[in-house]
C-alpha cells in the first residue's frame, strides 16, 4: 500500500494508483482443480440423473403437506376464516405472522442476487440461484396468507386498482395497499431476475438433452440462447439493470411490510424503528433459511466443492451481523417505550416480556438474539451440525418475532375491557404446515428440473476464467511505477 504522508498530501497523490484494490490473495471459491466441464457435469447431473428415491420420498411428503394446504384453504373458503383461532382483539395472528415470515425468508435471495452482485461479492455465485428460487417460492407461500386471510376472498381483487364502471378505487392511504404493490413488484422483479440468470444454463441443459421432451421444454425456456458474444453482452447488461432494480426492493419490501404495523396506532406496532428492524430481520431469517437448505442440497447432491464452507461461513457472518442488529432493535424498542413516558407503550412492552405471551417472547429472544452469538466462534461458524441447528433456531425465532409483534400488541391494547387471548386452532396449524408443503414442493421440483447452481456464473469466478490474475495485475502496476 502506498499511503502518502499527511503533511504533503495535496502534492503527492499519484493519480494512477488505485489503492482500493484488494491485493491479498483470495482463497479459491471453487475447491479442487475443477475444469469448466466438470462444473457443467456436476450441476447438470443433478437434473439429468435418474430420479433418486430420496427425492421421490421427500416430494411425496411435501406433496402431502401441499394437500393439507389445499384442504385447509378449502375449509377457510367454504366455511369461513373463523376456522382459524382469530378473535376480536386479535384480528391477525398466524396469518400475518406467516405472511411476514415467508416474505422475510425471501429476502436472502434478492440480497444475494442483487446487492452482493453490485458489491462484486463473487462468492454469491454458488448459492444465488437456489437462494433466488427460494425467494420466489417463499413469496408464493407468503401470498397464500394475505390472499386467504380476507373474509371474502372472492372479492380480494378489489385491492387492485382495476378500472371499473362503479369508479371504485382502492384506498391509497392504506398500508395494505402499499403491500400489494410492494410484494407484487418484488415478486415480479425477482421472477424476471431469476429467469434471466437461468437462460444460459437452460441452454446448457437444452444442449445436453437426450430426449425430445427435454429438448422442447428447455429449448423453449432457453429463448434461443446461443451463447454468442452479443448474447452475453446483452445478458450482462440486462442482469446489471435488474440487479439495480432489485436492490431498492430489498429494502422497500420489508419496509412496506413493516408499515402495516408502523403506520397503525397500536402500542407495540406504532414504531418508527420498524423499517430497518424488519429489513435486518428479513435478511437474518432469509440467510438462515438459505443455510438450512444449502447444507442439505450440497450434501445430497455432492456439491461440497461448489457450495463450500467459505460460502456457509460468509452467510453465518451475515446471520451474526443481522442477528445483532435485530437484538439491538429489540433493546431499543424497550428503551423507547420507557423513554417516551407513554403508559400504553410501556405497558405493551412489559406485557410482551412478562405478560401471557412471555413464553413466545423469550423463545424469540433465545433464538434470535442469543443463539446467533455462537457464530462469534469460528469453530461453530464452520461446523455443519452447529450451523444447521442454529439456522433452524433462527427461523423459529423469526417466526416468533412476528407472532410476538402481532399477537402481543393486539391482545392487550388501550382498553383493558377488550383484552383477550389468541389460541391457535387446528386449521391454523394445518395452514402453516401447508405453506411449508407448497414451499418444499416447489423447491424440490426446482432442484430436480432446473440447475440449482448458476453454472455460467460459477465458471466466471473460477481461476481459469480470469485472464488477468490478481498477482499479475499487481505486478503490472509495480512495473509501471518502477
Amino acid at each position, binding site marked *: 500500500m502506498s499511503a502518502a504522508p499527511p503533511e504533503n498530501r495535496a502534492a503527492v497523490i499519484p493519480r494512477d494508483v488505485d489503492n482500493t484494490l484488494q491485493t491479498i490473495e483470495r482463497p479459491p471459491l471453487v475447491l479442487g482443480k475443477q475444469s469448466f466441464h466438470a462444473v457443467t457435469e456436476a450441476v447438470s447431473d443433478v437434473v439429468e440423473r435418474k430420479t433418486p428415491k430420496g427425492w421421490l420420498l421427500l416430494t411425496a411428503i411435501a406433496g402431502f403437506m401441499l394437500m393439507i394446504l389445499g384442504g385447509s384453504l378449502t375449509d377457510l373458503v367454504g*366455511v*369461513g*376464516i*373463523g376456522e382459524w*383461532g*382469530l*378473535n*376480536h*382483539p*386479535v*384480528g*391477525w395472528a398466524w396469518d400475518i405472522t406467516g405472511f411476514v415470515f415467508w416474505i422475510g425468508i425471501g429476502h436472502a435471495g434478492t440480497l444475494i442476487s442483487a446487492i452482493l452482485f453490485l458489491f462484486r461479492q463473487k462468492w454469491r455465485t454458488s448459492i444465488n440461484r437456489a437462494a433466488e428460487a427460494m425467494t420466489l417460492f417463499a413469496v408464493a407461500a407468503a401470498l397464500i396468507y394475505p390472499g386467504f*386471510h*380476507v*373474509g*371474502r*376472498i372472492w*372479492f*380480494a381483487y*378489489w*385491492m387492485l386498482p382495476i378500472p371499473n364502471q362503479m369508479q*371504485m*378505487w*382502492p*384506498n391509497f*392511504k*392504506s*398500508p*395494505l*395497499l402499499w403491500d*400489494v404493490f410492494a410484494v407484487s413488484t418484488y415478486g415480479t422483479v425477482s421472477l424476471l431476475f431469476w429467469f434471466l440468470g437461468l437462460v444460459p444454463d437452460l441452454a446448457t441443459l437444452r444442449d445436453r438433452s437426450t430426449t425430445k421432451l427435454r429438448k422442447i421444454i428447455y429449448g423453449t425456456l432457453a429463448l434461443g440462447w446461443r451463447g454468442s458474444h452479443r448474447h452475453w453482452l446483452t445478458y450482462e447488461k440486462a442482469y446489471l439493470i435488474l440487479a439495480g432494480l432489485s436492490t431498492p426492493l430489498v429494502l422497500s419490501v420489508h419496509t412496506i411490510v413493516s408499515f*402495516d404495523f408502523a*403506520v*397503525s*396506532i*397500536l402500542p407495540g406496532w406504532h414504531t418508527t424503528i420498524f423499517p430497518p428492524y424488519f429489513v435486518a430481520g428479513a435478511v437474518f431469517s432469509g440467510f438462515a433459511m438459505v443455510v438450512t437448505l444449502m447444507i442439505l442440497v450440497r450434501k445430497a447432491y455432492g456439491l461440497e466443492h461448489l457450495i463450500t464452507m467459505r460460502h456457509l461461513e460468509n452467510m453465518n457472518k451475515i446471520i451474526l451481523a443481522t442477528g445483532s442488529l435485530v437484538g439491538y432493535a429489540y433493546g431499543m424498542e424497550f428503551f423507547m417505550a420507557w423513554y417516551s413516558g*407513554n*403508559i*400504553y407503550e410501556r*405497558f405493551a412492552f412489559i406485557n410482551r416480556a412478562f405478560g401471557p405471551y412471555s413464553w413466545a417472547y423469550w423463545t424469540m429472544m433465545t433464538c434470535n438474539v442469543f443463539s446467533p452469538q455462537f457464530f462469534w466462534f469460528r469453530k461453530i461458524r464452520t461446523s455443519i451440525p452447529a450451523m444447521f441447528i442454529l439456522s433452524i433456531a433462527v427461523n423459529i425465532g423469526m417466526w416468533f418475532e412476528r407472532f410476538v409483534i402481532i399477537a402481543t400488541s*393486539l391482545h*392487550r*391494547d*388501550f*382498553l*383493558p*375491557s*377488550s*383484552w*383477550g*387471548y389468541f*389460541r391457535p386452532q387446528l386449521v391454523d396449524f394445518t395452514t402453516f404446515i401447508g405453506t411449508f408443503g407448497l414451499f418444499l414442493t416447489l423447491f424440490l421440483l426446482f432442484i430436480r428440473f432446473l440447475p440449482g447452481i448458476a453454472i455460467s456464473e460459477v465458471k466466471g469466478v473460477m481461476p481459469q476464467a480470469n485472464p488477468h490474475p490478481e498477482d499479475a495485475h499487481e505486478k503490472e502496476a509495480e512495473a509501471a511505477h518502477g
Partner: protein
Amino acid sequence: MKRLPIVYDDRSDKRYWRSLTEKSGDPNYKASLAAEFPDGTSEMTAEEGEVSRRNFLTVMGASMALAGMTACRRPEEKILPYARPPEEMIPGKPLYFATATTLYGTAIGLLVESHEGRPTKIEGNPRHPESLGGTTTHLQALVLDMYDPDRSTAPLEKGQKRTRDDVTKTLRDLSTRLKGDGGKSLAVITTAHRSPTLDTALRELRAQLPSARVVRYEPLDRTSSQEGTKLAFGRALEPVHALDQAMVIATFDCDAFANEGSPLKNARGWVANRDPERGRPLNRMYSVESIHSVTGANADHRLRLRSADVAQLVLALAQKVGVEGVAAAAPLAPNAQKFLDALAKDLLANKSKSALLVGQTQPAAVHAVVALINHALGNVGSTVKYVRAFDDVTPAGPKALVELANAINSKQVDTVVILGGNPAFDAPADAGFAKAIAGATTSIHLSTHIDETSSACTWHIPRTHFLEAWDDARTEDGTYSVVQPLIAPLYDGWSDAEVIRALVGQPNKPYELVRASFSQAFGGDERAWKQALHNGFVADSAFAAEAVTGNATAVAAAAKTLPVAGAGFEVTIRPDPHAFDGRFANNGWMQELPDAMTKITWGSTAWLSAATAKELNVVEGDHVTVAVEAGSVTLPVVIAPGQADKSVAIFLGQGRRLGRVATGVGVDTYPLFKSTGLFVAAGNVNKANVNVAVPVTASIEKNVLSRTQEHFNMEGRPIVREITAAQYTADPQAVKKMTPPGPPLEALWYPHPSDQGHKWGMTIDLNACIGCNACMVACQAENNVPVVGVLGVRKSREMHWLRIDRYFEGPVDDPRSVTMPLMCQQCENAPCESVCPVGATSHSPEGLNDMAYNRCIGTRYCANNCPYKVRRFNFFNYSKNFITTQQMQLNPNVSVRSRGVMEKCTWCVQRINEARISAKKTEADGRVRDGSIVTACQQSCPTRAITFGDYNDRESMVSKKVALPRSYALLAEFNFGPRLQYLGKVRNPNPELEPAAPVAAGAHGGSAAPHNPGSAAPAGSPATHGEHK
C-alpha cells in the same frame, strides 16, 4: 330444443276428434302429426326406434350444463302489492303501536315498531308511568321470543296433533263435566298476571264453578312483600316507590334497578337527583346485599353482607330510627355497625325524603320491618305509597302451589288447567309438581312452547305471545294499560282469558273480552278507548293510595322469629341474569347478553367471593357442589368481586330441556328451591371433583366460563373518570385534568370539514349509566346483530356493537365498580378509515364512520387499528340458517351482514336518515330538529344517560352536555377526535364513611401528573375537533 308437447290422459269416456282425417284414422295423418315436431325433438322418447347413445349423452350433457346455469340466478321472489292497503301503512315506513306487558310484578308500557305488519323492535313508551321510555333487557328480548322457531305450532293431546276445534270441543266437554260437581275437581294455575280481563274471566269461572281452585304462581313474584304489608298494616298492599322524591335511598338485598319492583321507574327516580349541574344536592344511595348487584354497584355506599344477616341489620336500623318493639337479636360486625350508624343518621336527617327498598328474596318479616321504618320516617305518602294489591283473593306463591300439588296427589283435584308458566320446571322442589301433574286425569297446559310442563300434561295448547293477542294489565300502582297485539297469532294460539271463557262455556274473542273489561272500568266511551289504545294506558287510573297504620306488635312478634344466621355457608337463589326464571332460556339474545357484573354469558355459575374461593381452594372455572337441605347441584365457580363471604349465589332458570338454544345450557337449580326459606338457605359448598362427580359431556362442557370481558382493572389508565361531588365543586375541571399530558399532536391527513350541515355527536353520562345492559339488547334488536353461541363467545367473537365495560377498583373482595358503555366513537381522525385497503369504511359528510358492508373484503385491519375495539367481524355466516319466522324479526332498514364482513355501531344511521328525510319534508330549512333522532340505545336507556344530536347546533342538548366541564373524550391524549364524549361520574359519598379525598387527585387515573395547560388534548367543545392543523 323445442318443448315436447304435453299430452294429458283423457279420462273421459268421450273421444273427441279434431278433424275428419283424424277421425278416419288415416295413417298419413298420423305421420304428419309426428312431422309437426321436427327431428331431434322426440330424441328422448324412443318412439322412432333407439335413442342413440351419442345423442343421449349430448342432450344430457347440455341439460346438465344448462341446469348449472340456473344456479347463476338469484332465487325468484314475488313482490305483491296490497290489493287493499291497510290503513296508515306506507310500505317501507314503520308504524309504532302502544302496548304493554307484565313482568317483575308490574305492567310496563311499550311502543312496538312494526314493519309491514311484523313487529320487529320493542321500545319503551315514554308516556307510560312504568316505562318512561326506558326498557329493560328482558323487555327488549321479548320480541325474539315471539319468533322463536321452537314455539309450538299446534295443540297436542298426549303427544298427538289436534286442531283448534278439538280444543274447543274438549274445553266445552270439560265445562259440562265440571259443572256437575261445582268445579270441585278443577284447579286453574295462572301466572302472576295483572290482567283485569283474565281476572274478570276467573271471577266468572268462580261464579259458575264455586269450588274450583285458582292459584297464582310464578317463582319470582311479590308474595314476600305482600305478606310483609299484611303483617305491618293488616292487609296485602303493594308498595309503590317514588325515588325521585328521595334524597336518601337504602336497598336491602334488592336489585331495584334490574329486576325488582318497578326497575325502570326506580332507576329514573334515582337518577333524577344525580345531576351535579342542576345546582341541587345529590341524593345518596346505600345498598346492603350479599351479591354485587347492578343496584349495589351504583350505590354511594355498599355493604356486603350475607342475605341471612340482612334481617338483623334491618332490625337494628329499625331500632335506631325509632320503630317500637323491634330489636336486633345479635350484634353487628364493626363495619356493618359503622355503616348502619351513618345510614341511620342520614335517614333521620332526611325524614320523609328517604326510601327503603327490600328485595323479594328477603322474608316477609323483613318487609314488614322496613314498611314500619318507612312509616316511622314519614316516607309514606312522599317517597312510598301503598295501594291495594291487584289480586288479594287468589292464593298465590310457592306455598299455594305446594298445597295444590298435595290436592292433586290426594285426588281431590283431577283436572288442572295451567295458563302459561311452567310449574313442572319452576315449582318449588317440595311441591313435586311434575310428578303430581302427571297423575292428574286431565291436565291442560297453555304455553308458547312444548316445555317441561306440557310434556307432563295430557293437553298442550299453543299460547299467544303478548304481541299476538288482546289483553290488558294493571301496573303495580294500578294504572290500566292496554296490551294491544301487533300481529295475528302466528300459530293460532289461545290467550289465557280465551281458555277460561271457553271453560265456562262462553267463548269470546280476546278483543271483546278486553273491550268489555275496559268498559267495565271506564265506561263505554269509544273515544276514551281509542285514547287508551293510542296512549297504551289510561291516565290517572292508578289505585288510590291507602291510609296505613303500622301494627308494631305483630311485626315485633314476627321479627322475633327471624333466625340469626349461623357462621356456615348460605346459599342464595336469584333469577338468572340470562334466563330470568327460565322463561328466557331459549332466547339467544338473553343467553349471550353478558351478566352486568361478571360478564358471563350462556349458562349457570355459582358466585363466590375471592376469600371464600380461597378458603374452598377453588379458582374460577373449577366446579363446586352446592348442597342445601333440598338437594345439591354442581356448578362452575365465578369469583364475583363484592360477593359476601360465606355466601354462594346460584341462579334459577337454566338447565332447561327445551329448544335449540336452551338445551344443554347451564344447570337446573330448581331442585334446590323450596317453598320454605325460598331464596336463602343454609347450605354447604365443596369443591367438586369434576372427573368423578360430573361426566364431561357436551352439556357440562358448555358450562366452562364464557365471558365477554376478562380483565376488570383499569391499569391506572384514565378510562372511566370518577370524582366526588365535593371534588367537583372544588374543581369543576377535575375530570378533564385526568387526561395524561402530552405534546400537541397533529393529524396525518387533512381534517374532514365539519362546520357545514349536521355534525352528529353523542354524549354518555357515566353518572347516569347504571350498567343495566338494556341498550345492548336494544342495539341487537335494532341492528340485526347476530348471536354467535357459547363457543363463539369463548373464542371472543361476540358481535355486540355496543358493550358495557365493567371495571372494579379497590380490594378484590369489596371493590367499588364503574361501568362504561362503549360503541363506535365515530372518530374525526379515525384510525380505521385510513387503513382499509378498499375504502370500505369512510367518513360521512356528517362525521360518521360509515361502513359499506358490500365493499368490505374483510382484512380486519380496521378492527386491529381501532383503539376502542368496537369493530366486529363476521367469522362465519351467522344468519345462514334463519328460518322464515326468524327472518321476520329482522329490521328491514339494516343490512344483514354476510360472512367475512366487518361491522360496527353506526349510531343507528338508518334512524338518522329517516329523520333527515322527514325533516326535508316538514322543516322549512330542511334541517333535522334536535331530539328527532333517537338511537336505539338512547331510546332504551332507563336513566337517559345517552344524548344524541348535532354539535353544529349550539342549542342542542348534546352541545350543552358536551360543554359541561366534566365531559371528556376517551383516550383524548391520542387525538383520535372521537365524536362521542363521556361525562364523568360524580359520586356523593357520606363523609362519615369515606373521608374526603384530596381534591386535586382523581379517584381514578393512576397518572397523578399535573395537568399541562398547553396540552392539545381535545379539552373544550368538540366543535374544535377536526380542526387540528
